[in-house]
C-alpha cells in the first residue's frame, strides 16, 4: 500500500553497492525499457521520461536519474524518529467524526 498517492514505490529488494553515477546506473540495467525482456522487472515509470517542460524524451530525464533520491528499500526497522503521519482517509474519517458531534 502507498501511504499517499504520490508516494514513490518502495524497493522490495536490497540495493547494496548498486552504482548510480555519471558512468553507470545499475537500477536501469534491469528496469530500463530495453532490459525488461531479460530481467522481467517492472519498467521505470513513463513519467520519468518527461522533462521539466513536459516533453517526453527517449530515455530517463536527468532529474529522475538518481533513483534513490526518491526510492528507498523496504525494511522492518524501528522508526529513527517518532512519526505522527496519518493518511488522508484517516483525516477525512476524523473530520466526519467531528461533524457528527
Amino acid at each position, binding site marked *: 500500500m502507498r501511504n499517499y498517492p504520490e508516494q514513490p514505490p518502495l524497493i522490495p*529488494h*536490497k540495493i*547494496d*553497492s548498486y*552504482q548510480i*553515477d*555519471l*558512468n*553507470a*546506473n*545499475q537500477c536501469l540495467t534491469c528496469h530500463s525499457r*530495453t532490459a525488461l525482456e*531479460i*530481467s*522481467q522487472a517492472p519498467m521505470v515509470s513513463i513519467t520519468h521520461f518527461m522533462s521539466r517542460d513536459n516533453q517526453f524524451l527517449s530515455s530517463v530525464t536527468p532529474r529522475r536519474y538518481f533513483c534513490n533520491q526518491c526510492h528507498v528499500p523496504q525494511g522492518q526497522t524501528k522508526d529513527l524518529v517518532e512519526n505522527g503521519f496519518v493518511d488522508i482517509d484517516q483525516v477525512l474519517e476524523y473530520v466526519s467524526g467531528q461533524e457528527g458531534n
Partner: protein
Amino acid sequence: MFGFLRRTWGVIKRPSVHYSLGALTMGGFLMGIIFWGGFNTALEVTNTEAFCTSCHEMSDNVFEELKPTIHYTNRSGVRATCPDCHVPHEWTNKIARKMQASKEVWGKIFGTINTREKFLEHRLTLAQNEWSRLEANDSLECRNCHSSESMDITRQSPRAAEAHERFLFTGEKTCISCHKGIAHELPDMGQAALINGH
C-alpha cells in the same frame, strides 16, 4: 676467441672422465629441480595481492574500490584477492596470463595509466578486456569459488534464483554477463553500449 670456443666445445663433447654418468644425470636432475622451483617461486610471488598493489596504478584505483565490496569484507570472512579473479589457477592459462602481464610492465614504463585521469580515460578498454576474457573462459575465475552445482537457489533471493535458473543453469549466460562491476566501479557504460551497438 674462436679457438677458445672450439676448445670449450671440445670439452663439452668429450665423454666425461672425472664424473660418472650417474653423478652427471643426478646433477642435471638437481639443476632441473632448482630452475623449475625458481620459476614456480617467481610465479608464486607475482600471484599475490601484495605484488599487484605494489604499483600505484593498481593500489590507488582498483584496490581502493575493491575494499567496500563483498569480496573484501563479508560476514563469513572468506575473501577474494586480485589473482583469484584475474589470474587463472590452471597452469597453462597461468603462463598465458603472465605473458599478457608483461604488457602491463610495459604500460608501467610508458605510463599509460599513471594518473587517475589517464586511468579513467583507459578504464573502459581495460574493463572490456577483462569482460571478454571472462566471457571467453565461461567465468572460470568466478567458478573457482562459486560453483553453480553447489548453488542452492532455494536459499537465494527470489531475483537471484530466477535469473540463475533461467540463464545460468541453461548455459545461456555466464556470471560476468550479469555481474559486471562487482569488484570495482564501472566505466562509462553509456559509451560501452555505443561501442557495442546496442
